[in-house]
């Protein structure tokens, strides 16, 4: 177990160091890493907790806004970064508690998370007036909040994290989050979470408080998404209500579904691949970006319901273990994804 973990840590570090040479636009590469973290946050709660959140962008946006607002007010970016983790985590915990303690089903979970995102989107868009401010930070409506202090080196306040240093910082966080979640999934909490995904009633009948565990998992997902938002704020140096938009939420789901919700690596791969695709599409005007992304989602649902990474993994496994087992696994995993 430990060997495997250190192996993936080393592979991750190598990838992180090699990536800038393969893909020499470091600015874009950084945002791909941030998207990877955002996708990972949803991949965790969806793939392992069985919770499909249609509003992961809400936590992403909250993290970004919390960072911007706190940074303006306290002029202390590292404290602001901490706040940017706490605010979305608490919001996710509150929303999750409402959903799970109320025993709302999948569809209602989708509706409520979507609506919560929409409320934030509408609210942020309507805060153009000077009356809307938190401390010294004006919310700025659809123009967003520009001009906040971004992260610096902790030991040198004049050295901002920008370009390459920001890239390495983001990549290290992504790697840490990936390894952290891997560890969590082998720890009792993660195993219980997977057990709940498999059979909520069973987990409850052996004495686990399913509501609490799902709420905690949701809060962890919210915190990671908020962390991605915080990094995004540092990258973009402005936060706007579009962070909360429905297409942002949809995009995260597309990354995860294309990459594969059953693994931790899948969502990251999905985010990188589709993020890069979006970037290349952005450079031409012939085909609309959304058109491609939307079509991809339709095709993925129809033809690739397990996602890229698990499908490839399955092909390898299938070759080793024989066909029968593969079929059994496929049906049972599918049941999870489509559960009610």
């Amino acid at each position, binding site marked *: 177990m430990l060997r495997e973990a250190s192996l993936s840590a080393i592979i991750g570090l190598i990838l992180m160091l090699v990536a800038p040479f393969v893909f020499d636009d470091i600015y874009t590469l950084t945002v791909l890493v941030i998207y990877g973290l955002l996708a990972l946050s949803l991949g965790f709660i969806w793939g392992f907790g069985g919770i499909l959140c249609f509003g992961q962008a809400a936590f992403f946006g909250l993290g970004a806004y919390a960072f911007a607002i706190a940074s303006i007010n306290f002029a202390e970016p590292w404290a602001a970064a901490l706040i940017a983790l706490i605010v979305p985590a608490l919001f996710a915990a509150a929303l999750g508690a409402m959903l799970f303690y109320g025993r709302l089903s999948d*569809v*209602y979970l989708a*509706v409520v998370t979507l609506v919560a995102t929409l*409320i934030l989107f509408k*609210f942020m868009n309507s805060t153009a007036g000077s009356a809307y401010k938190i401390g010294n930070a004006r919310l700025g409506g659809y123009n967003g909040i520009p001009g906040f202090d971004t992260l610096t080196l902790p030991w040198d306040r004049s050295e901002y994290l920008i370009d390459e240093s920001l890239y390495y910082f983001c990549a290290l966080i992504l790697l840490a989050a990936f390894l952290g979640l891997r560890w969590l999934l082998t720890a009792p909490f993660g195993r219980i979470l997977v057990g709940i995904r498999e059979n909520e009633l069973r987990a409850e009948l052996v004495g686990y408080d399913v509501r609490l565990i799902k709420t905690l998992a949701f809060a962890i997902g919210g915190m990671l998404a908020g962390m991605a938002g915080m990094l995004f704020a540092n990258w973009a140096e402005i936060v706007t209500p579009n962070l909360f938009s429905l297409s942002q939420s*949809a995009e995260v789901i597309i990354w995860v579904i294309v990459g594969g919700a059953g693994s931790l690596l899948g969502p990251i791969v999905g985010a990188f691949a589709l993020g890069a695709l979006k970037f290349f599409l952005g450079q031409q005007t012939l085909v*609309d970006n959304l058109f491609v992304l*939307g079509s991809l*989602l339709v095709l993925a649902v129809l033809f690739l319901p397990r996602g890229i990474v698990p499908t490839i993994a399955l092909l390898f496994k299938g070759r080793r273990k024989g066909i029968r087992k593969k079929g059994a696994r496929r049906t049972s995993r599918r049941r999870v994804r489509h559960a009610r």
Partner: protein
Amino acid sequence: MDFAAVVVMEICYAIAVLVLISTGLAVIFGMMRVINLAHGEFLTLGGYAAIMSNQAGLNIYLSILVAAPLAAAIFGFLVERLIVRFLYGRLINTMLATWGLSLAMIGGFSMIFGNTTTGITTPISGFAVGKYQISGYNLFVIAIAALVIGGVYLILKISRAGLVARGAMQNPEMAQAFGYNTSRVYMFTFVAGSALAGLAGGVMAPLVGINPAAGAAYIAKAFITVISGGTAVISGTLASAGLFGFVSQTFTFLATPVVGEIALLFAAVVLLRLLPTGITGRFLKDKV
């Protein structure tokens, strides 16, 4: 007194809009347990169809009441045959696929029509009640909404087609055993729901400008109206549209339209929290 009349008018109008934009979705959801997240873009499609055919010289009422639903119906037919029919019984997957469709349609619209807002002028002029101006077209919208909901009610309740449809949805095997082709029934239902969406888009086109992303303004409202209403097509839609229309319009009067919209969304979340079983139970009963 005049003010009261205007307020009542506005509330009726808000409810009518909700009814109009939700009925198509409600028909599809209530009868087939399919949530079409591209519903907003079906409305937009209706809007574009109305505007285009009007600009091509078609009479404005024909554009709104015939061209718009027809275009959406044809498109709905294609969507049902190519996408939705493979996903029946898998609610979350249908939601994901139609969400993808929604994004693809937005992209498609901007490739075809460009990223600009187009519109047509209202064919009915306003009139004055005391010192307040009332839009005549708003009355037209209320009338159309009433006709739509009445028509759907009659079709479902009285006609043979409605009976077959309801039977096929409730017990597909039984209906099949009676010799009805349930796949056809699903298809017609989806097409009918799409046509209703197109009609709504056409009717709304003179009031709001149409642009590729215009559907987003509708989908959330239609979506929560339908979900909160539950699977009873008529009573569910009327009940939740009545409640949400009242809430949003009241808050719009008291504060701003944005507050009104946020109040609407809030009311929906609270409602779902308070009444999860009444509506949820229906989901789980037939599906496992």
